[in-house]
């Protein structure tokens, strides 16, 4: 069942089918993204997602995992990320204990001790190994989040993994995936990721959505908010994106803002509500200082006219 499922691209019949399934999981994808994702599933290639912060790169992975009935395995990258945190680690404490027990009971024989100490039981599997574990019973979606935060060494390691979908553990042997997982890499472009890595992937740039699209996303994600509120907040965030800011609000900020205002039982936006909750959407002190007062009022006015 497993191989059939993934071989057919997670049972996804067509691009529209995929769009449909994502919409059911309340993820609104545009056409370009749906095509890329569909091809990634069918061609079994990693998908490389770039875009500004908060445009839904990470949440796509969980939506798609649900949509194709797979487990989501997430690896958050950071500088210095190494094999022991990304791939596997031996459980040293337990190994040492086992070594003492072996010594005490049957005397230590080198060859057999080695075999027993370096067995599956003492192996701690980290995300990358989990994703290609041949013992998996369900397909996997592997999310490698914010690859631009990792350093070049890790990128090099990943290159090898994505080419073969296998990992060699010196003490144990080679582990190879029965079915390669769907791999989604995201980057916020804090640095340029090496071309060799990108070359193995399908590439997709996610834009800020249009007004209509963003309203659609808000309605899907925050259904409890009033329709009018959703439209007004979205319009104001779109206005804010046209202003020069240190931290431009993403879609996730729009969603947070609508949810926050809905929690405060607001059904429509006014200047007082904006001033009270501005910290949900603007997250640099300089931006808040620059906009507070008249500028914010005029932006709000333009947003309301939309």
């Amino acid at each position, binding site marked *: 069942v497993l191989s059939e499922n993934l071989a057919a691209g997670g049972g996804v019949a067509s691009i529209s089918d995929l769009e449909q399934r994502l919409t059911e999981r309340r993820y609104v994808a545009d056409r370009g993204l749906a095509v*890329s994702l569909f091809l990634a599933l069918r*061609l079994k290639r990693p998908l490389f997602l770039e875009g500004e912060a908060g445009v839904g790169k990470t949440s796509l992975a969980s939506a798609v995992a649900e949509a194709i009935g797979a487990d989501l395995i997430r690896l958050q990258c950071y500088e210095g990320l190494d094999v022991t945190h990304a791939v596997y680690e031996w459980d040293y404490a337990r190994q040492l204990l086992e070594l003492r027990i072996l010594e005490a009971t049957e005397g230590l024989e080198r060859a057999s001790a080695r075999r027993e*100490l370096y067995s599956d039981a003492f192996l701690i599997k980290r995300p990358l190994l989990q994703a290609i574990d041949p013992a998996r019973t369900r397909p996997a979606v592997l999310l490698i989040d914010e690859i631009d935060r990792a350093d070049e060494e890790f990128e090099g390691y990943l290159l090898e993994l994505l080419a073969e979908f296998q990992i060699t553990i010196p003490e144990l042997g080679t582990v190879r995936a029965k079915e390669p997982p769907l791999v989604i890499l995201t980057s*916020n472009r804090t640095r340029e990721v090496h071309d060799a890595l990108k*070359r193995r992937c399908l*590439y997709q*740039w996610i834009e800020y959505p249009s007004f209509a699209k963003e309203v659609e996303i808000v309605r899907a994600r925050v259904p409890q908010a009033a329709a009018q509120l959703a439209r007004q907040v979205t319009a104001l965030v779109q206005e804010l994106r046209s202003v020069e*800011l240190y931290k431009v609000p993403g879609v996730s900020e729009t969603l947070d803002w609508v949810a926050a205002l809905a929690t405060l039982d607001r059904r429509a936006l006014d200047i007082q509500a904006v001033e009270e909750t501005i910290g949900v959407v603007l997250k640099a002190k300089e931006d808040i200082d620059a906009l507070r007062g008249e500028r914010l009022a005029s932006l709000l006015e333009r947003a309301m006219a939309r």
Partner: protein
Amino acid sequence: MTTFTNNLLAFGRLLRRSGFEVPVGNVLDLTEALTLVNLTVRDEVFHACRTVLVRRHDQLAAFEKIFDAFWRQHGNPFAAPATNTARDAQAAAASVPVASAAMHDGELRDGEQEGGGEPPASGLQIWSDAAALARKDFAEFTPLEVAEARAFIDRLAWIPGERRTRRWVRGRGPRVDLRRALSRSLRTGGDVLVIPTRRRRVRLRPLVLLCDVSGSMERYSRMLLHFAHRVGHLHGRLEVFLFSTTLTRVTRQLRIRRLDAAAAAVSEAVPDWSGGTRIGPALQQFHRRWSRRVLHEGPVVLLISDGWDRGDPGVLRDEVARLQRSCHRLIWLNPLIGTVDYAPLTRGLQAALPFVDDFLPARTLADFRELALHLSTVASAARPGRGRRGVRNQPDRQT
């Protein structure tokens, strides 16, 4: 060959000619990808081609133009038999200067790898030969002297110190390497005789150069460009931005190995050469657009400007303060220091100076030599309060 394949190859060639890197593997991927989409729907074909062939955000617009031209010329090239040859589309693609410029840049950059910069010897030997030149104001340099100055810059060591990264590698250090400890203990019957350790890896600190090229700096900007070009090749991890009223990143242009080609590319890229100065807004632009990409590895930032700023001193102060907070060390280089009667009295400069780590001259080659020496000394002495080592070296701060 079928029309489909022919057109596919023609499209690949067209892209290559316009500066895209299209490996054969990608064309094969595309062949496969196109069997999975509806070839009569332009949108699906477009997105399939784009996701396979484009790898950078700045290529998206150029790609769309080329695809458009190709599609129009061929009237749905991958489904119906082609009506035209690919040659017609080339003319259309010629109108995509962005991509071709990028290719030009890329080719030259590949060439620069070999040869590289020789490890710079000490700049002190030639010092005596060039004593007169060393103290001469850059503004008065002849072309011959500029060439000598370039050679001089080459001989200085541009090492702004190292940064401890968060990656652990084998070596003498504070962390026990449990994995090696265990595998060694097996050899010695379960006893640990030597405890293997790990240490943090160190990397050369990046340099960021923010260079004022406004009207008042005009006499110096030529020499500063030479400086940026040479240091870029010697150091390898240099980011360069020029500003006058707006800010432009010229890192890519300066990577071109031949100086005249690099200079031409730079002057083409900078829209407001020798315009007015607005340092504050230019830095603001830097923070908004670039700081996340170039400041995250703790660089040493060199800000080169005479400080003649017509903008709001408050803005300049805030932006300089922000810059200092987000880098390892902020050095302001000012070509006016050392001229007779100069005192940094402009209001903007006065406001910004408290947030600058070093305020140094940059008017003569002697100044550059001092700067290179200074960089290698600040390497070990971190700003107070930065990191454990800095604190440990100053016992009086531990009370």
